[in-house]
C-alpha cells in the first residue's frame, strides 16, 4: 500500500463472527489492542471490524469489551464466510480507512483470509503470534522474562513504535520476532487463548461506522453448499480452568477413560499430546501444542506426557503445571511446578480421592 507510513492510524481487530456469534479470540484481540493502543499514543483507537449480514447487535459486545469504534461491513453475500467476498470488502475498507495494524484470530477462517488480504494489499503478515509489542521497553521486559535473547543491543528509550510480532517456529524450538517495517498495515494472526480479554463494561459504547460494501455474486467464486457442525464433543480447551492431558505414557486409547474420569472429577477438560492424536487414540480437537491448541489454564495436569518442545510450546504458560510421569528425567519436569514420579494409573485415582477431602 502507500509508502507514507504516517498516514496509517489505529488498530483494527477482525471481529470474526460465525452465525451471529463473536469468536472468543476476537474479544481477546480487542483486549490486546487496548494495551498496544495505549503504548502507541493517546490518539490511537481500538477498532473492531464486523463482517457479515444482520449483525448490528454485535457492535455493543465489541464496545463493552473495549472497542472505541466499530466498522460494520454488511451485505447478504457476507452472510457466510467466503474468502473472495471477505477479502474484497476487508481490503477495500483498509484502503479507505488506512489502519496501522490489523489483527486476526488464527482460526481456520482467519488463517485463510489474512494471507489473501496481505497478498492483495502488498503488505506483510505474521502467522500464529503468541506475543505482540509496540514499545521497545516492553519488548525488552518480555524478552528478559521469557527468552534467552540478549537485550543489550536494544534501546529501551527508542521511539520505534512498529509492531513486534513474536511467534514460534520450527515446531516451537525457536522463537522469532517479526517486523513489517516498510509497508502498512502491519498484520498478524494471533493464536486463540493467548491474549486476555478486557473486563466487560456493561453499557460502554462507541462510534459505529457503516461502511458501504460493493459486492456482486460474480465476485464470489466458491459456493458454500452446507455448513455442518459435528456432533463430536465440543472441546473448549482455550476456556478451560483445568486441563487433564494424557500422553504416550497412557499406553493405549483406553487410558483416556481414566483421564476423562479425572477431568470430570476436577471439573476440567481432556487434553492430549500429539503422539496420542497421531496414534489415533483421541480426536485432534483435544491436542495441546504447537500444532494443536495453545492453552493457559489455572491447572494443567500432564499425565504420561514426556514434554516434547512442540507440546511445551502450547501449555507452558499455564498457571500451575502438575506432571505425572514414570521417567524422572522426562523434560516435562523442567517446566512443572509440581512433579510426581510414578505410575499415573496409581497416582491419578489417589488425586481424585483426595480432591474432595
Amino acid at each position: 500500500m502507500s509508502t507514507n507510513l504516517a498516514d496509517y492510524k489505529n488498530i483494527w481487530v477482525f471481529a470474526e463472527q460465525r452465525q451471529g456469534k463473536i469468536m472468543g479470540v476476537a474479544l481477546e484481540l480487542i483486549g490486546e489492542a487496548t494495551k498496544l493502543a495505549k503504548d502507541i499514543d493517546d490518539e490511537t483507537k481500538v477498532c473492531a471490524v464486523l463482517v457479515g449480514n444482520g449483525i448490528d447487535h454485535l457492535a455493543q459486545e465489541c464496545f463493552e469489551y473495549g472497542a472505541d469504534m466499530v466498522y460494520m461491513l454488511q451485505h447478504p453475500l457476507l452472510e457466510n464466510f467466503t474468502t473472495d467476498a471477505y477479502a474484497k470488502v476487508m481490503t477495500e475498507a483498509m484502503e479507505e480507512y488506512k489502519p496501522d495494524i490489523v489483527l486476526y484470530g488464527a482460526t481456520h477462517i482467519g488463517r485463510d483470509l489474512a494471507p489473501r488480504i496481505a497478498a492483495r494489499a502488498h503488505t506483510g503478515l505474521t502467522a500464529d503470534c503468541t506475543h505482540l509489542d509496540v514499545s521497545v521497553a516492553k519488548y525488552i521486559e518480555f524478552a528478559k522474562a521469557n527468552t534467552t535473547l540478549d537485550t543489550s543491543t536494544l534501546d529501551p528509550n527508542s521511539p520505534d513504535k512498529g509492531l513486534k510480532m513474536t511467534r514460534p517456529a520450527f515446531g516451537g524450538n525457536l522463537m522469532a520476532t517479526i517486523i513489517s517495517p516498510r509497508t502498512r498495515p502491519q498484520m498478524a494472526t494471533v493464536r486463540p487463548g493467548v491474549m486476555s480479554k478486557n473486563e466487560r463494561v456493561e453499557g460502554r459504547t462507541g462510534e459505529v461506522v457503516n461502511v458501504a460494501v460493493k459486492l456482486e455474486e460474480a465476485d464470489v467464486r466458491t459456493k458454500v453448499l452446507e455448513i455442518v457442525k459435528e456432533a463430536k464433543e465440543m472441546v473448549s480447551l482455550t476456556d478451560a480452568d483445568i486441563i487433564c492431558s494424557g500422553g504416550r505414557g497412557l499406553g493405549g486409547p483406553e487410558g483416556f477413560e481414566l483421564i476423562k474420569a479425572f477431568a470430570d472429577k476436577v471439573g476440567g477438560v481432556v487434553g492430549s499430546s500429539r503422539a496420542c492424536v497421531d496414534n489415533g487414540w483421541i480426536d485432534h480437537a483435544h491436542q495441546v501444542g504447537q500444532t494443536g491448541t495453545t492453552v493457559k489454564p489455572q491447572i494443567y495436569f500432564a499425565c504420561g506426557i514426556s514434554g516434547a518442545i512442540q507440546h511445551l510450546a502450547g501449555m507452558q504458560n499455564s498457571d500451575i503445571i502438575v506432571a505425572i510421569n514414570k521417567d524422572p528425567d522426562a523434560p516435562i519436569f523442567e517446566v512443572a511446578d509440581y512433579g510426581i514420579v510414578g505410575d499415573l494409573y496409581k497416582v491419578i485415582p489417589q488425586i481424585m480421592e483426595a480432591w474432595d477431602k
Partner: protein
Amino acid sequence: MKVIVCAKQVPDTNEIKINPETGALIRDGVPSILNPDDANALEEALKLKDQRPDTHITVISMGPPQATDMLFECLAMGADEAILLSDRAVGGSDTFATSNALSAVIDKYVKEFGPYDIIFGGRQAIDGDTAQVGPQIAEKQHLPQVTYVVDFQVSEDGKTVTVKRQLEDGYEVIEVNTPCMLTCTKELNEPRYMSMKGIFNKDKKITVWNAADCEVDLTVVGLKASPTNVFRSFTPRPKGKGSMVAGDTEAEIAANLIASFKEKHII
C-alpha cells in the same frame, strides 16, 4: 486433467534438538523430508490420476539444489515431472515474496505446457507453520481457494470440484470451478510409498530453473522484496522448575499435592 502440486523440503522438526548450554538449534544431522501436508497434496493428485489416467502431475518447489532429493521422492511416488526453482536471488524470501516466485514458476509452466486445472498445496509447512503461501499463490494466480481440505471430489467433466473444508467444530461443503487452489490436510488421505517402478523410472525428469529461466521479476522476490523481516530470533526460556511432591505412597503424594493447592489457594 493438468495438476500442479506445490511441495517444500523441510527439516524434520521432530528431530531438532536444542543445545542446552548455548540455547542454539542443533540442525546437524537433522534429516530433510517432504513436508507432511505436501505429501497429502501429492497423494490427492495421485488418487485423481488413479481415477483419470490422463491426469498429468507436475510438482513445483523452490529451494536449494538438494531439494531435488525431495522431488525425486515425489516422482517415485508417481508424479510425472518436477520443477525446482533454485536461485540465490529468491533466497531469504518471506511468504509474500515466495508466493511471487512460485507464481512466476506457474506462469512459465503455463507458457510452456498450457493451462492447469488444479493447484494442490499442503495446508502448511512444519518449519514455519504459517499456512500463507498457498492462499498467496492463489491471489497472484487470480484463483479461488479452499484451505483445510479434508475431502475432495471432482465432477465428470472435470470443471467443478466439491470439497469439505475443515472448521474447528465441523466442516463446510464447498463447490468451486476449476482452475482453483486447494490446500490439503493430513486428514484428507494416507500418502502412498514410493514404488520400485517409480524409483527406477529414468524417463521422468526434474527440471531446475534459475530466476532468469522462469522470468521472475527480481524486484518482487528475495529478502529485499519481503515485507516482513526477522527482528530478533531466540529460544524460549524454560519455565522455572518446581519441586517434586513428597510422599512414600501414591496416597500420601496425592494428599500432599492437594494440601499444597489449598494452602496456595489454587483450589
